[in-house]
C-alpha cells in the first residue's frame, strides 16, 4: 500500500510526526530498526533548561528564553520550527497525554527543578503529573534506595540534594526481599513492584524509616503499567508524597511514555514496522522517494509514500554515523553540517561538543537543504529530532523538546496541513 506519510525512526520525533498525521486522519507508518530512544530517555519534556548554554543558572521561563534564542541563533532547530509551532506541539502533547492515560503537567512558561539520580537539580517544563511535586518547597525529604538496584545510591543523592535544598534531607535503604543471583536494573524492579506482595514489602521496610508528610524521592521503579496505582498505594500507606527520579538506562519513565504513545498511535491506525533498518532508497528527481527495509530473511520490503519524515536520531541512535574525519547521515546520505574539529577536551564543559552539534541542515519547512546553495534536496522529505544540526541537547536540556516540536512540525507540513 501507499502511505500518506512514511516516518523513519520511532523516537519522540517520529511519534510526534505520527501524532500530527493522525490528527488529520492521514495514514502513516513508522519504520524503525530499534525500539526508539524514548525508551531510554528521562520521560521529561524539557523545552530549554539553560540559555545561553554556558549559563550555570537554569532558565526560569523557557518560553521567554526561547524568544531570545530565536533572535540570536537562526540555525537552531527551535528557530526553524518557530515559536508558534513549538507552542502548538506542546499544547497538543499535553492534551494527548491525558487521552493516553499518562497525563503530563507543566507549561512552557515555567521550568521546575527536578532531582536527578546523583542529587543535582535539573530544569524541565513538562513532566508526568505523578511527578508534579516541587522538591524545592518540601520541608522534609526522604531519599529511598532499593537494595536490589545497582543504579541508585540514596546517601549520595541525598548528600548532594542537601547542599541545594532548604528542606531537611535524609536517606534510607529498603530491601524488597527479591532473591535473585544477579544485580537488577530499574526495569526488573519496576516489573517486580507491580506485584502487591512486593509493594507490601517496600511499605513495611519504609514504615518506620520515613517521617510522615515527607516527600519520598525514589528511583523510577514503581511499576511499568500500574505506576499511578502503585504510587498512590505507597503515598496512602506512608502518608507521604512520592516523587520518582529517572534512572540510568533502562529508564522506566521513558518506557511508560514510549509504550503509551505507541499504543495510542497504533489504535489510531498507524503501522509500526520495528526491527528492520532502511537499506534501500529510490528517488526520481527532487520529488519522489521510495524506501526499502531489510528483513531478517535478507529480503527487501519496499514501502511507498507521498511524504517522508526522517527522525532517525543523532550519533547516539545511528541516524548519523561518525567516521574518521567526517559524519554521514545514515539513510539518505544527506549533507551534514559538521563541526568535527570542535572536540572540547573537558567532558563537563558547558560548550557544545562538535559530535552533538553536527547534523542535517533544514529550512523552516524542515526540508533538508544543500548547505551551500540552501536548495531543498527532496521536496517530500523532512527531518526532525536529533538528526538536526545546530544544538547540543545534553547541556542545553532541550532533547525531548526539540524532538517533540520539530517532529510535530515536520509531520504537519508533510501531510500538507
Amino acid at each position, binding site marked *: 500500500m501507499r502511505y500518506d506519510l512514511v516516518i523513519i525512526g520511532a523516537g519522540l520525533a517520529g511519534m510526534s510526526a505520527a501524532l500530527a498525521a493522525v490528527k488529520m486522519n492521514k495514514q502513516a507508518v513508522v519504520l524503525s530498526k530499534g525500539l526508539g530512544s524514548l525508551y531510554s530517555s*528521562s520521560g521529561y519534556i524539557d523545552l530549554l533548561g*539553560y540559555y545561553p548554554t554556558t549559563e*550555570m*543558572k*537554569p532558565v526560569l521561563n523557557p518560553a521567554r528564553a526561547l524568544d531570545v534564542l530565536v533572535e540570536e541563533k537562526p540555525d537552531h532547530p527551535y528557530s526553524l520550527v518557530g515559536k508558534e509551532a513549538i507552542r502548538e506541539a506542546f499544547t497538543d502533547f499535553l492534551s494527548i497525554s491525558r487521552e493516553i492515560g499518562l497525563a503530563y503537567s507543566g507549561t512552557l512558561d515555567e521550568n521546575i*527543578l527536578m532531582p*536527578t*539520580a*546523583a*542529587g*543535582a*537539580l*535539573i530544569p524541565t517544563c513538562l513532566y508526568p503529573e505523578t511527578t508534579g511535586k516541587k522538591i524545592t518547597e518540601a520541608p522534609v525529604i526522604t531519599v529511598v534506595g532499593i537494595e536490589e538496584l*545497582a*543504579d*541508585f*545510591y540514596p*546517601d*549520595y*543523592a541525598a*548528600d*548532594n540534594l*542537601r*547542599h*541545594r*535544598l*532548604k528542606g531537611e534531607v535524609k536517606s534510607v535503604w529498603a530491601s524488597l526481599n527479591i532473591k*535473585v*543471583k*544477579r*544485580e537488577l536494573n530499574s526495569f526488573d524492579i519496576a516489573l517486580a513492584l507491580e506485584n502487591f506482595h512486593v509493594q507490601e514489602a517496600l511499605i513495611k521496610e519504609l514504615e518506620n524509616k520515613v517521617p510522615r508528610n515527607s516527600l519520598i524521592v525514589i528511583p523510577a521503579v514503581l511499576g511499568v503499567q500500574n505506576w499511578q496505582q502503585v504510587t498512590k498505594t505507597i503515598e496512602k500507606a506512608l502518608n507521604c508524597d512520592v516523587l520518582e527520579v*529517572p534512572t*540510568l*538506562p533502562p*529508564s522506566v519513565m521513558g518506557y511508560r511514555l514510549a509504550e503509551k504513545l505507541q499504543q495510542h498511535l497504533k489504535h489510531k491506525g498507524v503501522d509500526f514496522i520495528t526491527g528492520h533498518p532502511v537499506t534501500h532508497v529510490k528517488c526520481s528527481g527532487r520529488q519522489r522517494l521510495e524506501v526499502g527495509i531489510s528483513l531478517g530473511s535478507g529480503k527487501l520490503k519496499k514501502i511507498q509514500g507521498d511524504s517522508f519524515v526522517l527522525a532517525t536520531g*543523532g*550519533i*547516539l541512535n*545511528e541516524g548519523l*554515523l*561518525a*567516521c*574518521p*574525519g567526517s559524519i554521514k547521515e545514515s539513510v539518505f546520505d544527506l549533507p551534514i553540517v559538521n563541526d568535527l574539529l570542535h*572536540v572540547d*577536551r*573537558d*567532558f*563537563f*564543559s*558547558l560548550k557544545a*561538543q562538535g*559530535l*552533538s552539534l553536527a547534523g542535517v541542515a533544514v529550512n523552516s519547512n524542515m526540508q533538508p537543504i544543500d548547505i551551500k546553495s540552501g536548495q531543498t534536496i527532496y521536496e517530500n522529505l523532512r527531518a526532525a529530532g536529533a538528526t538536526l544540526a545546530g544544538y547540543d*541537547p*545534553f*547541556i542545553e*536540556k532541550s*532533547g525531548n523538546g526539540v524532538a517533540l516540536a520539530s517532529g510535530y512540525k515536520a509531520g504537519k507540513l508533510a501531510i500538507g496541513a
Partner: protein
Amino acid sequence: MEKTQVVVIGGGATGTGVLRDLALRGIDCILLEQNDLATGTSGRFHGLLHSGARYAVKDFSSARECIQENQIIKKIAPDCIEDTGGLFIAVKGDDPNYIKSWLENCSLADISIEEVSPSDLLQTEPALTKDISRVYMVPDAAVDGFSLAAANALSARNLGARVKTYSCATGFKIEKQKVRGVYVIDRYTGQEDYIKCEFVVNATGAWAGQVAKMAGIGLNITPDKGVLVIFNHRITNKVINRLRPPGDGDIFVPHGSVTVFGTTSQTTSDPNDSEAAAEDVLRLLEEGKQLFPGLDKMRLIRAFAGVRPLYQPDGAGSGREATRDFFLIDHDRLHGLEGMISMVGGKLTTYRLMAKAASDHVSKVLKVDKPCLTDKEIIYPPIPKQKEYDNKQLCQCERISSKLLDLAVKDKVRFTLNDVRRLTRLGMGPCQGTFCTFRAAGYYHQSRSLKAAEANKLLKEHIQERFKGSIPVLWKEQAQELELTRGIYLGLLNLERLESDNHEI
C-alpha cells in the same frame, strides 16, 4: 622527618621490584611515586611479557634475558599473567632470510619455538589474514603491569617497606659529594617532608633524566613515545607478532575482555607526553590490516601512549635502533656523587633483573651480605585473579563486585577511581566506565563516608579520564558511546552544573 636506609624513587615495575628485592634482603626502604603505582611506562605499554623472540635477531642479549625472565615471572607472579602463548606470523612477501636468522637466534637464545600450520591456525584465530606463509608459537604471554607493580609493592610492604604514592621527590640533600636524604612533597596535602637515607635508587624510567638533574647530574635519556590502541573485544586469544624486524603496528595482546594493539616509535622531549592522535591511530590500523584484514571495521575504545625510557650511552641509535638493554649508572664512579644510582633502559619483562642488579649494588655499598631472593617466592596482587561470584557486580563489563571495590581501597586513606581501576580493571571494559563510574562513586560515598564533593570529584575525574582516552578514536561506536555517556552524566544527571544550583555554597 623520616629515616630509612634506601629511598627508591619511581613506582613502576623496576622501582617496586627494587623495593621488594631490598626488603627481602632485610634492608629498610621507602618508595616514592609521584602518582599512583604503574602510572608511567609500566602501565602504558602493550602488556606483553616478551619471550625474547622479538629481539632475537637485532638485540640478542636482550632476547636471552627476556626468555629467562619470562620463565621466572610466569612462576612468581601467576596472578599478573595470562599465559596465552604467542605467535610470530610471516605473511607472503616477508623476507625469508630474516626468518632464517630469527630461527637460528631463537634456538641460540633457548627460546622454544614450534611451527604451526597456517590452516590449523586459521581454525582457532579466524580473523587473521589468509596470506600467512609461516607461523611459530613462542612462550609470549600477557602481563598486567598495574597488578605486577602492586604485587611487588604489597610483598615489600609485608616485609616492612614503606610505599608512598602521590609523593613527589623534589630534591636531594647532598653533603660532601654524598646524597644524605630526599626532599618530598605530598601531592594531595602539599605537605613537605624530608627523608634521611643512606642510598637512593633512581628507578624513574623516562623521568630518570629529570630526577638525576635534581642531583646536578646530566643523564642522556631519550623518551620515545609509543602509541597503542584498545579494541573492545579479544581479536585474538594469543599474543600476535609479525615475523619481521620490529616495526610499528605489529603487536597484538589480548587482555581480559579487550585487545591492546601497537605500537609506534617517536622521540619526544617530554616523558609526560601520553597523548595519542587520531592520525597515529589510523596509521596503526593501516599496518595492522596486513595481519587482520577487518581491523578497521572493529570497534576501538581508546588510544593512549607510553614513553620508553631509552638510554643512549654515547651517541648510539635512537627509537627502534636503540638497545632494549638496561643500564646501571653508578653516579659515584661516573660523576663522583656517592649514595645514588640510576636504573635506565630496559623493559618490563626484565624488571626483576634490573631490580636485582640495583639491589646487588646497594647491598654491596651498605655491606649487607644477602643474596637476591626475588625469584623464589610467589607474589600476589591486592586483588586476586580468581574472582568468586558475587551477586552485586558494579562493573558488569569486567565483573567487579562491591567486595572487590572494598578490597581495592582497604589500605588507602585517599584514592581516585583511576587508582581503583588500575587494581581491579573497573571501567576498562567495553563501556569504559559509562555505567560503573556512577555506581562506584555512589558506593564509595556510602562505604567510605565521603562528602558529596569528594564523591562528585571521584566520579568526574574518572569520566574525564575515560573520555580523554577516547578522543583519538571518536568515530563509529566510540562516538556513540561518548554520546551515551554525555546523555547520562550531562543530560540525565546534570553533573556539569552540580555546584551552580547550590543554596548554601
